[in-house]
């Protein structure tokens, strides 16, 4: 039972991080209908900036720089590349993001060389005992941080003019434009927010607790869990992204424990396939993924 509780907490901790990633992914999709395959490279980029600035700025300062850099990179990708190809279809824009992903990822992996630095703070690898249950501090911090950020996001999404503009554009581009919604503001803010969330996520991923590995190509692979998470929740559903993230975290944690580490990755995709068969638009989505 204790093991189970522990697994659930750890699963939710991972899930919270996947939720941040999936949420960014879904925001971009909602605003632009583009599937952003460069999400993993945004994660790596944020992490890399933490690594190179930590010496001088300390962990907290470096974390801020990392998060902002990931946001800025996302904004630049949108402004400099995607927005220039305005008439291209979402499909070809998705291909463009694959190119961006490869370039950024390979460059960072090359720069990292053989060093695989952890970027967790002092809380990393100092398990916490609560009753008979051992919990990773990183996961607890991740749950708290993700809860705060996701709550803030939903408040803004629901009540602010930004949220109204965002939802209006997601639902009907032409009607939004005729209402005076500036399409480029919605689109670039979606990318900015997604980048910032990716920058936060990496602070938890490249840790001993979360992955047992520092910043590396592996970080990128872990970030790819945002795809099944978003697809499970429904590509165009923000609430779905959060649920999908948690589902992926739990499935990952439980199948690692009860089956095997190697099976965990397939388990996530198995769950995704089952969801797609039963509900082609994902748990909360309205658009069929197969259409994308």
């Amino acid at each position, binding site marked *: 039972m204790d093991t189970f509780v522990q697994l659930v907490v750890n699963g939710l901790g991972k899930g919270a991080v996947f939720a941040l990633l999936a949420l960014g992914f879904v925001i971009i999709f909602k605003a632009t209908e583009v599937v952003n395959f460069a999400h993993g490279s945004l994660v790596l980029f944020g992490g890399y900036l933490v690594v190179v600035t930590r010496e001088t700025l300390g962990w907290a300062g470096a974390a801020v720089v990392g998060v902002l850099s990931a946001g800025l990179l996302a904004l630049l990708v949108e402004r400099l590349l995607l927005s220039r190809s305005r008439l291209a279809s979402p499909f070809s824009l998705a291909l463009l993001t694959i190119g961006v992903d490869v370039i950024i990822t390979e460059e960072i992996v090359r720069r990292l060389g053989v060093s695989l630095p952890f970027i967790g703070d002092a809380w990393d690898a100092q398990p916490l005992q609560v009753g008979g249950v051992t919990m990773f501090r990183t996961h607890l911090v991740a749950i708290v941080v993700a809860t705060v950020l996701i709550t803030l996001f939903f408040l803004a999404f629901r009540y602010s003019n930004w949220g109204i503009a965002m939802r209006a554009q997601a639902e009907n581009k032409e009607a939004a434009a005729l209402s*005076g919604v500036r399409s480029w503001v919605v689109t670039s803010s979606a990318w900015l927010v997604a980048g910032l969330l990716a920058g936060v996520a990496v602070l938890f991923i490249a840790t001993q607790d979360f992955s047992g590995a520092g910043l590396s190509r592996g970080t990128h692979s872990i970030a790819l869990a945002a795809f099944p998470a978003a697809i499970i929740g429904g590509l165009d559903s923000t609430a779905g992204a959060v649920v999908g993230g948690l589902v992926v975290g739990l499935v990952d944690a439980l199948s690692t424990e009860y089956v095997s580490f190697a099976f965990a990755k397939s388990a996530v995709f198995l769950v995704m396939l089952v969801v797609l068969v039963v509900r082609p638009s994902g748990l909360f989505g309205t658009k069929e993924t197969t259409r994308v």
Partner: protein
Amino acid sequence: MLTVRNLRVRYGRSVSALHGIDLDVPDDGVLAVLGSNGAGKSTLLRAVSGTLGLHRGSVTGGEIHYDGTRLDKLDPAAVVRQGVVGVPEGRQIFARMSVEENLRAGGIGARSAAERTAASRRVHELFPVLADRASQRAGLLSGGEQQMLAIGRALMSSPRLLLLDEPSLGLAPKIVERIAAIIRDIHEQGTAVVLVEQNAVMALGVADHAAVLEVGTLALSAPADELAESEDVQRLYLGGHAESEAEAERQVEAAHEQRSAKRRLSRWSG
């Protein structure tokens, strides 16, 4: 004053939808744009609103000016900020958002908070039903209410020129009359209107000037009452929907009656 000069529009590379249109809409005018399906009416409004790009279309020639500003180089959000706001064909409300949120979205193009507040008051006066349904999902409104919402949303940015694309489409005759009355109200409150319609009876009952489009060219432009009386036009356009000649004549009668009816202020009360 809206002026359209020698406007040419293409969709993609091959489809030429408008080949040289000239139009004027004075600041106190209501212009009816008539024409059968595919004539280019929606295309004309899209060109003014700047939304052609969303349909893979583009202005390939000519110019559109509004009060000295050239519109055809602006994006749709900037056109809204010039005071020119469109209600698209088929209403296109945000069905998954609440009525109130739809109106808030419309207010995004407003130039100031004070203007937004005033616009909101005006919209709720014109359409009390929208206040009653404020928290309801817009997709659950009836067709007529959705059209009210679409017009209300456009009014939220206090336009000086309102572009309406077939507001009567798919609505029952009673509702169409109400919409017509509302358009008159909006005009009397000082907003110029371009009213695109296939329902010529309704449009000529509201407009003071009318233009007839035929496959991308301007076939006719005349004061609305002249047009309503011209025999050719009666046969060609007013009778366009009629099942029989008798029905056509009845419709013409109706148009005349509507025109001569006293233009009283009326309210939509749902």
